[in-house]
């Protein structure tokens, strides 16, 4: 079986088709395995962090692949996987509109207060 692999980049999904669900149909061949995003919790109490992505035929295989590809050096205690098509990403072209306005709003950081000495861990 020839398995075609096509590289997606984060942010590609929303633009290719407007709805995430439809992006399955845009895969080039039916032999192509869907892409999954992998999130690893490195130890109890910490958040799951995005570790990378991989190809797998279904969730069970994706889970095993994630274990083999991303936790073989003892990186994690828990794995989340989600099919990449369900992730909606912001469009890089919108970055100016989305993020620039926050650039000059330094007052939004709570750094203008004088904290009493008694208050710790701030």
């Amino acid at each position: 079986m020839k398995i075609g692999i096509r590289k997606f980049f984060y942010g590609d999904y929303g633009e290719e088709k407007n709805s995430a669900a439809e992006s399955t149909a845009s895969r080039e061949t039916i032999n192509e395995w869907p892409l999954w995003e992998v999130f690893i919790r490195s130890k109890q109490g910490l958040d799951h962090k995005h570790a990378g992505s991989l190809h797998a035929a279904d969730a069970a295989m994706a889970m095993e692949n994630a274990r083999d590809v991303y936790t073989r050096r003892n990186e994690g205690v828990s794995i989340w996987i989600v099919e990449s098509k369900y992730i909606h990403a912001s469009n890089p072209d919108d970055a100016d509109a989305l993020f620039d306005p926050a650039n000059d709003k330094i007052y939004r950081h709570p750094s203008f207060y004088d904290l009493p000495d008694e208050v710790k861990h701030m």
Partner: protein
Amino acid sequence: MTTKQIKNPLINFLLQLGDNALIMGHRNSEWCGHGPVLEQDIALTNIALDQIGQARNFYQYAATLISESSGEKLTEDSLAYLRDSWDFKNCLLTELPNGHWGQTILKQFFVSTYQYYLYQELEINSDLKLAGIASKSLKEINYHVRWSSEWVLRLGDGTSESKQKMLAALETLWPYINEWTIFTDYEIEILGNKHQSIKEKWEEKIHAVLNEAGLIIPSDAYAQRGGKQGNHTEHLGYILAEMQFLQRAYPNSEW
């Protein structure tokens, strides 16, 4: 060197455990860089490394015991690299060529499930060192069983092409199944009467998974055997030639 003359059942058993793990690991390592997709390439290479790690543990223990009794200074490397094919006690199944992906998976499934039930018994063996190695290995084996049986289900119950290929693989490998449960004296010495239940559990598991995968089990019960006694197929010689070349051409070289 040779280990042919050794009579101690524990040492013979350790050598067999090590040989099965090493030859499986070596065969799987041949897939490195050739897997059908990157993720599965890594998965199988991980398994190969697990098996070679297990082989090391068994060889280290065997080397200590042989050194103690004979006074000859041996290491795990002497056992892996300096013995000839008639010293190896691995089952013939492990040395067979990999064939296609499905055949490799099926072989892995047979071996991993066997190791799973065997190591469960060894884990409670009165020899604490052997029990310790078995217990450590079981965690890895657990995953190998899960991974390989999922693939047997996927391919057996997949497309008509994958099913056809799995049936052909089953036909090829089936004559090599029985050897595992035709126990030798040194195995029975260590396992006691437990060997019968290993055989039963293993066969039950194999039948359950193959049935679920929709693969018809061949009725032919002919058993290819001899590996446990050191009588191997021609394939083992080629494996050893490749695996041992460096140590034999450049003795004691390290990297």
